[in-house]
């Protein structure tokens, strides 16, 4: 399976209510160790936007920085963006993807603690 097959997929909650579209996939470097001792990248969750397009622009972790125009763009893109933990995804071979929770239980991206970034 390719990562791009996840991007752009529609996501619904347990009852079939639309949550949005997958705009990014969050990865953590904590999988089983690989050949050179590096841990594999594991999918930890999906970033889902209520709009049908849009993307993260790179300011999500430091929302106070950047020029006003870009901040507004980011704010616009991120309004209502949610984070669906990978374990909550019911099956990945269906369209739309179904999340085994009610929409109200799914956290907003901006409420999550800032993940540890790159060094």
């Amino acid at each position: 399976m390719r990562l791009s097959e996840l991007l752009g997929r529609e996501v619904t909650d347990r009852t079939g209510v639309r949550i949005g579209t997958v705009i990014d996939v969050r990865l953590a470097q904590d999988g089983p160790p690989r050949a050179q001792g590096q841990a594999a990248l594991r999918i930890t969750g999906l970033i889902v936007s209520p709009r049908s397009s849009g993307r993260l622009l790179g300011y999500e972790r430091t929302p106070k920085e950047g020029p006003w125009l870009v901040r507004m763009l980011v704010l616009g893109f991120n309004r209502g963006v949610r984070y669906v933990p990978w374990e909550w995804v019911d099956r990945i071979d269906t369209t739309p993807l179904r999340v085994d929770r009610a929409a109200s239980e799914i956290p907003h991206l901006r409420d999550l603690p800032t993940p540890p970034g790159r060094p």
Partner: protein
Amino acid sequence: MKRLLAVTLGILTAIGGFVDIGDLVANALVGSRYGFALAWVVPVGVVGICLYAEMCGRVAAISGRPVFDLIRERLGPRLGLANLAASFLVTALTLTAEIGGVALALELATSVNYLLWVPLVGFLVWLVIWRVGFARMEQVFGLAGLLLIVFAVALWKLGPDWGQVLHDASHPALPPGEGLPTYLYYAIALFGAAMTPYEVFFFSSGGVEEHWTRRDVGVARSNVFIGFPLGGVLSLAIMGCTALVFFPLGVGVDTLGQVAMPPAVALGKVGLAIVLVGIFAATFGAALETGLSAGYTVAQYFGWQWGKFVRPLQAARFHGVTLLTIVVGVMVMLTTVDPIKVTEYSIVFSAVALPLTYLPILIVANDPEYMGERVNGRISNTLGTVYLVLVLAASLAAIPLMIATKAGQ
């Protein structure tokens, strides 16, 4: 001299934006038709290109990533491809025109028809890209292009009433018989040319060619803040010369031959010789800038090895693209299309390319994951946002104005 040699990348880049074949004629035409009434556009353009060239030079120095890498990353493959198509067309059309421009300069010197020079010029442009090292290339053509400073000397020799010039430039008024749409069309054409996208492609890729690192942010800045203002000065000097020589007579400039007249009027045969060598060097330099940029953009979009810092064998696809672009450019020129008209029509593609090029630069120049401490300051961001809006407005207005005024006729 050493200081000047260190900033030749900025100078050569600026030549492509301010005194390439299209701009030489556009500056002269604007001076001859509007006097000093459009001079204000040049400083506006200089500030804009300085701002964004500084950002992309800093990004290239700190991360090693040239502009089209940023475009692909932040716009994704689809919008990135749209930008690639538009930017490549602008660049390739301009390259085509520059080949014609070099040939026209040779015709002025020898009176041998320019079409006979076109294949030779195409071959020479390719040969320099193929063989000559990047540093030597930018030094030779950047410094030789500075011979156009002869326009400033001619302007001084023509001895205008400087108080009056300053007044005309700061109180722009439409000359009788000229319409506002045409005036605006030329304002946008000059602004668009100053901020033409291949400048940032070339400048940032050139920084990578010169192996800039974190320590070279200062070098990048001096290139920007010396090179582009110099380009702007040349541009204004040409405009001033034709404003003095042609504007009072009601003569409109539309050929390269006429562009070279003011230095001959003011300085005689010596002036003429210097201006012809200067035009040759500037158009040839712009041909190198656009030829390389055509290769840079495609290679950087697809992730191919590019650059003159490796053996040509190691960057086969990159050299393949530049070679093919030059060959097509030569063939288009040989159909006897007017080189100056070709640059006028490339403005259509600039309209798409400009905003899609400058937005990703602004975004990445602010990204701490990329830039660490060296993110944009408040001034860069405020002005950057203002110019992004200006660029967007100009690119939206360019095409309707071009149609309404029949490209400024």
